[in-house]
């Protein structure tokens, strides 16, 4: 009997490892596949390419930090792409008005947080589906961005914020753009928040079973407002990165970005039913997509191939998740 439960436990541990390492394995696999091509190998495995991939991941990755929290809590935020566009226009407009860059940074993040706060408040107070509320907000934020930018791009003069995503020396891996370090730093902070704090435990509890969370005295509605507000903050930071990358505020940028962000979270092992997911997985998920994109464009594959491949990867990742869950039920 003791032996039986021992082997059962080992199997459980094994599965936990597989589900944690799954995304990492996927990343190695994808990179390895591109390495098979002899013409690609010399360009693909260079510091400058690594820098390119990392830089391209920053916006999706920072957005995905907020989205992971939302999805683990059993929700969804479809307004992410629009909020990135809106906040990038907010940043540019403030810079045009000669507001000091440090203040611009904070105001931009705050504007993202405000949108998230509205999302969270409506979802909690009216007990509405996050899908619907954030779908509405997707339009509202996009429209506001266009309104604010008078339907065109906003171009401020050179300023320190333009340099966050600047490659400095494109031929060398280091120094990495500041944006990459910011993303890594935020990812570490979020890992700690999700794993080590009461707040993080509550996020998992609500996503795992909202009724139980309520039974356990967790202030579910207040917590949801906090979650969406924090997520909005991350989208605001992503919006700053978006601004810095283009050095202009573009109200029509980042269309469909929310789906890319959600894909990163899902590939990273989070369940859309809530209750499971990890920051590390999400980051790897974001990287997998960036590597796929970069690799296929360097292979001169048409963009439609990229889209098809990424689509297949998403389905495969979720199939693995289903398999894991059906095992848990058995």
């Amino acid at each position, binding site marked *: 009997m003791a032996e039986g*439960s*021992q082997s*059962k*436990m080992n199997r*459980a541990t094994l599965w936990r490892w597989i589900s944690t390492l799954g995304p990492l394995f996927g990343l190695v696999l994808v990179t390895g596949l591109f390495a098979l091509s002899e013409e690609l190998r010399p360009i693909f495995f260079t510091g400058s390419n690594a820098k390119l991939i990392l830089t391209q991941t920053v916006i999706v990755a920072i957005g995905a930090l907020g989205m992971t929290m939302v999805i683990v809590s059993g929700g969804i935020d479809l307004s992410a792409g629009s909020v990135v566009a809106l906040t990038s226009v907010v940043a540019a407009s403030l810079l045009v008005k000669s507001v000091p860059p440090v203040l611009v940074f904070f105001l931009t993040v705050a504007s993202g947080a405000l949108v998230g706060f509205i999302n969270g408040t409506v979802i909690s107070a009216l007990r509405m589906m996050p899908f619907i509320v954030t779908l509405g907000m997707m339009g509202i934020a996009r429209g506001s961005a266009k309104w604010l930018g008078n339907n065109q791009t906003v171009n401020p003069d050179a300023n320190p914020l333009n340099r966050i995503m600047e490659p400095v020396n494109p031929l060398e891996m280091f120094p990495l753009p500041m944006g990459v370090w910011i993303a890594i730093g935020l990812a570490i902070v979020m890992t*700690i928040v999700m794993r*080590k*704090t*009461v*707040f993080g*435990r509550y996020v*998992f*509890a609500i996503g*795992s*079973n909202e*009724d*139980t*969370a*309520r*039974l*356990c*005295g*967790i*202030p579910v509605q207040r917590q949801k407002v906090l979650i969406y507000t924090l997520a909005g903050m991350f989208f605001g930071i992503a919006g700053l990165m978006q601004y810095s990358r283009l050095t202009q505020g573009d109200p029509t940028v980042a269309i469909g970005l929310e789906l890319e962000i959600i894909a990163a979270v899902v590939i990273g092992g989070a369940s859309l039913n809530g*209750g*499971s997911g990890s920051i590390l997985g999400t980051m790897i998920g974001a990287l997998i997509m960036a590597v796929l994109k970069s690799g296929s464009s360097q292979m001169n594959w048409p963009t439609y191939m990229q889209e098809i491949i990424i689509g297949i990867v998403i389905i495969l990742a979720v199939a693995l998740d289903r398999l894991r869950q059906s095992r*848990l*039920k058995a």
Partner: protein
Amino acid sequence: MAPPRLRMTNVEKAFGATRALRGVSFEVAPGEVHTLIGENGAGKSTLMKVLSGAHQADSGTMEIDGEAYIPKGPLDARDRGIAMIYQELNLAPDLSVEENIVLGEEPCRMGVIQSKKRRAMAEKAFAQLDHSGFSLKTLVYELSIAEQQLVEIARALIRQPRVLIMDEPTSSLTQVDVDRLFQVINKLKAQGVSIIYISHFLEECQRVCDRFTVLRDGASVGTGEMASTELDDIIHLMVGREMTEIYPHLDHSIGDPVLELKSFQGRKKPESVTLSLRRGEIFGVAGLVGAGRTETLRACFGLDKISGGSIEIAGTEKAVGSPRDRLRQGVGLLSENRKEEGLLLNQSIANNLTMTRFEPFTKMGFINGAKQLEGSQAWIEKLGVRASGPKQIIGELSGGNQQKVAIGRLLHHDATILLLDEPTRGIDVGSKAHIYRLVGELAAQGKAILFVSSYLPELLGVCDTIGVMCRGVLEEVRPAEDWNEHEILSVAVGQEEEK
């Protein structure tokens, strides 16, 4: 002599090691209303599932009008003339009455619905009920529960059933609606439809049924004419068991009241509960399913709204309170739905145990994981939870071990008032004994326990005081030694005391 409409002989059914049915036999004549009586868990629902084709019997025979009846599934059962009306209504609320009645039986030609024929079918079914309160075009969600039930019955009549099963048809009806339903039943009876009527309310059965069969522990133990049998005798048949299990008795003394309810009322249920729970007391709440016991606990704990009366915790009025407030006031609730509500199934034992009170392991909002595991391990050992360790996912444990963790959460929270809703439901005997002992120990420590259970022997064995609920009202409270199973059931089924 004509064969009976339905005859079941020695029907048996087991689920794994549990023998849900251990030999049930009964007969129903054409045009007879026959009631199946038994306590919660006596096997009524399983038996009806076997009859309506949802389960296959392991052994035994069934006959309809003298022909062998072995349903392959619910559809087959329907074709053979068995119709069932569930306690929970199964209607499509956004469709009209007419559409609901013919749902799945739509008359059509090449995929196009023949609306005239459909109307005729629905009208014919409705005519049998002789009811004219609402039009066939009304959308179902606009109807009252009683009217919806009529629609459900009409739907069953479309197929001209030979046997109509009604499971607790009156549980959510008002007295007037009940009378109306009985008229409908009598009409159907006159048309030769046999009805199997399942209800907890014996007096209703007495009014509308011709004969009865009593089920106990999965076996039919008695059958007879309703008119010539005293309710007392039926209750005696329902109880019929000896107190064989041993309940540990731990000395504990009862102190001052800590939870007082006065004419306590929830939104739908309970209608009126007045009780006083004292320090060190185990207060049992008996009653049938739907009597409002769970709702009382939920309203106490702030999960449901309170709509009347008062609640005092430790001597002060605490009218409004969320579950969070209640936990702070030292009240803990054990949910009857361990899987749906009680536990975070995909989370670790440690998280489930400590979710309501992380404080011992936290500093400025950061959780010390090692400390949390250590604290959880201590509970695992104290409660005798069989698990590989505090990190194990709770969904992997057996029901009994899950329940120990769920109770452990209340202990870790150090709740002084414990509201336990069916704490031993669905767990093995060993774990039950463990929980009985634990409850005794808690009382000895001075905790106050409200113990809701449908299993009378455990209430009588464990509790100091027992109150019985019937139809949303806490009817009577007495010390446990002044009750016996028979008397509890009499009050629970709404039988008037004869003194």
